[in-house]
């Protein structure tokens, strides 16, 4: 083969391989979704949403687990969201390039990729040991801690997208920074901040490891935040590894439910961002 033909051949080979790599990535996404739908859809009945988690061998649903997941995720985002937004605001508007801000930004990035099980251990030491028992509020706090770095990051990025000219205009009219931020910057960055919150919700609603020893699990309906509370991820964990067919079926249904919720949230968040980007270009 001539040198030229050889180079063309290598080119084609390498490019096909990269196409193949992409196909492999997409294949696994497809395979996982297909498995979830195949195994989960059969058990999807009204019972899943209206009945409690059953003892082995009898039928039931996931109502208490769904409720627990929703409650803990909501409390988690209600604590973590505002804290993250405020911290993001500090980094974007007040601290900017100060040394302290650089450190906080770095620490936030580290927290962003820190293993969630470590957060679980931390909250266990912080709350569970002191209270003497597992509780829903401990679960919610660990979810909040996971939501904070996500929100900090997206809030800072989104606030930085707001044109400096708008801020200057507000300052020129004599507004204090807090006025500029709340009346000009936040409204301008609103959809971006909403995206960040949606992504944070998506991130925490599937978290399992930090709930294992904070909220634990509860086979029964409980709305007491001071007591252990059922939640979808831990129920999936427990039921999937059990030998009982009815528990395994519920685990698959729960898995399908949680994955669909998260994928819908993630896609919705991206749609908000892309409409924002297009609005910015115009």
């Amino acid at each position: 083969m001539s040198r030229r033909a050889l180079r063309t051949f290598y080119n084609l080979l390498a490019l096909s391989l990269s196409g193949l790599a992409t196909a492999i990535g997409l294949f696994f996404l497809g395979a996982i979704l297909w498995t979830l739908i195949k195994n989960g859809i059969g058990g999807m009945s009204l019972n899943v949403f209206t009945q409690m988690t059953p003892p082995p061998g009898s039928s039931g649903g996931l109502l208490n687990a769904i409720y627990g997941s929703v409650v803990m995720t909501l409390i988690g985002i209600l604590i973590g969201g505002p804290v993250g937004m405020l911290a993001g605001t500090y980094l974007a508007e007040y601290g900017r390039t100060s040394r302290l801000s650089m450190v906080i930004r770095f620490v936030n990035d580290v927290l962003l990729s820190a293993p969630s099980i470590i957060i679980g251990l931390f909250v266990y030491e912080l709350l569970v040991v002191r209270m003497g028992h597992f509780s829903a509020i401990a679960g919610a706090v660990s979810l909040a801690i996971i939501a904070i770095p996500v929100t900090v990051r997206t809030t800072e990025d989104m606030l930085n997208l707001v044109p400096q000219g708008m801020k200057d205009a507000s300052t020129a009219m004599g507004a204090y920074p807090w006025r500029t931020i709340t009346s000009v910057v936040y409204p301008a960055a609103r959809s971006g901040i909403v995206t960040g919150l949606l992504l944070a919700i998506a991130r925490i609603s599937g978290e399992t490891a930090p709930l294992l020893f904070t909220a634990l699990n509860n086979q029964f309906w409980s709305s007491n935040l001071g007591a252990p509370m059922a939640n979808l991820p831990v129920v999936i964990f427990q039921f999937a590894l059990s030998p009982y067919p009815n528990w395994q079926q519920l685990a698959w249904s729960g898995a399908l439910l949680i994955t669909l919720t998260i994928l819908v949230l993630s896609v919705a968040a991206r749609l908000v961002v892309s409409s924002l980007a297009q609005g910015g270009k115009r």
Partner: protein
Amino acid sequence: MNSVPAIAPAQAAGQRLRERVFRGATFAAALLVLLLLGGVAVSLAVGSWPAFSHFKLAFLTREIWNPVTDEYGALAPIFGTLVTSLLALLLAIPVSLGIAIFLTELAPTWLKRPVGTAIELLAAVPSIIFGIWGLFVLAPVLQRHVQPWLIEVLGPLPLIGKLFQGPPFGIGVLSAGFVLAIMVIPFVSAVMRDVFETVPDVLKESGYGLGATTWEVIWQVVVPYSRTGMIGGIMLGLGRALGETMAVTFVIGNAHRIGSSLLAPGTTISASIANEFAEAVGDLYTSSLIALGALLFLITFTVIAAARFMLMRLDRRALSSV
């Protein structure tokens, strides 16, 4: 001449007060981020103190893990964590590189977004879902179709043969590495893609101008230019793999032992904690598990910090070239 009416002093004071309150609130929230990391470090140090003071440094070098006699050593989980993560990287790096190349250099514009989004969605799938999929779908496939082949073909080889001997369990170190690889691919490829996109067009055009093929431009211009960022992305993936919990817990088999075979069950730090922590009785047992957590924290913190540092330098370069 009309002058603008001056702002009333009381109103001005009110404005200043609100400014102080708002600024204080944002500052407090920002400090809380620092405190969180500090709090995690301190609580892990305190919680693991009984184990470290009881076992001393032998905790790090002993394989034994026996709740009955209350003797614990971290060697097997550390070993499992490192092996599964390295295995995951070995499998994930080429695929991630391929995806990043495809998305930045090959895909037509209309295809870029849907494919990129799909890969990102893979990162959004919760860890526990990878776990049940790995246990019920991947592990049986590996056990039936892949592992027998590995044992037959690679098992008799010298040196690496040891890695592929013994019965095909399905669950074990290899399966855990495989699932981890799928989980880190979206992270590594996303960073690589972003890094590739910072390569100035002029550089690539110079390559093409000299008559280079697409692949030659990628391999000799894009990749060398992005080296630091690529390594940062890989380290970030490594950080993910090291700390990944639920998916590994499902497929690793949870055996506190160090085997030479990749096909045998093992355990990782995070899987041990997830499996045993809620049921651990006795202070020493609990403390040993927290000590495992502290080790995991140290390892991942180092890796992630290094990764972020590399990517931070890259960010600055990207910003300065704008």
